[in-house]
């Protein structure tokens, strides 16, 4: 019971936080000169790990697709399997997970340190709204970068799948690509971009929320960082199901 109350208290506090942020941005605007720097650091930090993870998810999609369809005589369908699973589902969520793991944790820990070292209070006292100054550029930055990372993640995944299929499994490359492009259509890319924007919104606001509410003391920042990545990953994954249901559910 107490745990449930604490949980809903947290949800309410987060909702207030987001509301305050919206008011702050409407009043003070976005400090645009900071956006590029944030976008760059989010992208650069997340890209290497994203390339590795997306690539090796692609390899396994190819292997499993091949093993699943081979007994049915459809080993050529591996291209379709990789593109369908990659473009629609795994590329967006993996890009989001990596950004949550790298950029999100960094937001939470940086802001947590700012809270503990009274820098957020100092901004307030200098009559600079901390929410507009700290969160807004990070939010715009992540919204610019995560869709791009999602595209990169998609190509990396399908590319790795193609490589494994051709080199290891002996599926001809043209066949792979032909079936891969049959499996998906233009709206699939669009839906991936919509997912990326929604995930970006969640990761940024959740991570900043935990940073802003960081407790003092030696464990404060670590705890905030941990809660930021766990919470934003769980929300994104659960939301991903509902988004896919909305986007693709009509095709039963």
């Amino acid at each position: 019971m107490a745990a449930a109350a604490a949980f809903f208290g947290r949800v309410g506090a987060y909702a207030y936080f987001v509301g305050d942020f919206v008011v702050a941005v409407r009043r003070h605007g976005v400090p645009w000169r900071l956006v590029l720097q944030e976008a760059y650091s989010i992208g650069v930090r997340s890209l290497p790990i994203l390339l590795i993870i997306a690539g090796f998810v692609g390899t396994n999609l190819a292997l499993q697709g091949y093993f699943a369809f081979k007994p049915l005589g459809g080993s050529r369908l591996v291209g379709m399997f990789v593109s369908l699973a990659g473009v629609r589902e795994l590329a967006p969520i993996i890009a989001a997970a990596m950004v949550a793991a790298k950029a999100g944790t960094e937001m939470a820990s940086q802001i947590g340190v700012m809270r503990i070292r009274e820098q957020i209070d100092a901004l307030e006292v200098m009559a600079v709204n901390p929410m507009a100054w700290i969160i807004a550029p990070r939010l715009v930055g992540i919204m610019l970068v995560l869709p791009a990372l999602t595209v990169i993640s998609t190509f990396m995944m399908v590319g790795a799948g193609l490589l494994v299929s051709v080199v290891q499994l002996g599926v001809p490359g043209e066949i792979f690509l032909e079936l891969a492009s049959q499996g998906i259509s233009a709206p699939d890319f669009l839906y991936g971009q919509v997912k990326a924007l929604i995930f970006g919104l969640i990761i940024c606001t959740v991570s900043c929320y935990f940073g802003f509410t960081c407790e003092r003391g030696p464990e404060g920042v670590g705890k905030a960082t941990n809660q930021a990545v766990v919470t934003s990953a769980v929300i994104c994954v659960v939301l991903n199901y509902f988004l896919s249901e909305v986007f693709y559910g009509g095709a039963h």
Partner: protein
Amino acid sequence: MLQNTISDGVLHVADPEPAPPPPLIRLRGLTKSFGPNTVLNNVSFDIPEGRTTAIIGPSGTGKSVMLKHIVGLIRPDAGEVLCFGTDMARAPEPALYAARRRMGMLFQDGALFDSFTVGENVAFPLVHHAPQMSEDERRAKVNEKLALVGLPGTYERATASLSGGQRKRVGLARAIIMEPEIVLFDEPNSGLDPITSDAIDQLICDMKQALGVTFVVITHDIVGTVRVADYIAMLYRGDLIAWGPTAEVLRAEHPVLRAFLQRNLILPPAGGSGDARLPAVQ
């Protein structure tokens, strides 16, 4: 102008003014608890314009919490704080920010941004509130304030490379860059060597005389306090146990107050007259 001085181990405290100047900050019935812990209990007093008011008391008695109420970072459970007539807990954000732009605050550890250079930290309020100012003008102004706090030529220094005392001085330069009418200090002397500490005290005295700035200083350094303060307020366990001109507070009879001051000073007799003396051995 009031001026306290030290010579030959004797602290000459200026006679109190007939009446304090009108208050710039008014605390009325300020009450604040964190859970069961009552940190401020119905505290009321005025901070007069153009004077230096020191807030003293043992650690953990709510001095920092009181300062945060004055700048509107904490909302009281009851009572109010008025700065320039603005209710700092209830004013809408534009009015609150307008009041804060006339105030500067030095945080206990400087609260500087480590990713900025020293100069960028000091320039920060100017960049936000005086965007029309040219880069050269801004630099000149920052360099002037850095020189004032004893750190000339440090504009390009990395903030992370500063010592604790230097951070405080940079924080002070940032607090005064907008030429505020009120400057609040949270323990400007703690963790500083005696020479830097004296330099900051001297800076407070100079700025008060030159600019008529109202200072609110929280401090543990009793001797420094008595030297710079025109008025003293003492908090003890959340209660305001003394408030008045420095000379009167030094002669007050309150036992806790006397015990607190006597750790560092040899006081004049209670209710009597005369200057405080510094203990012979440092």
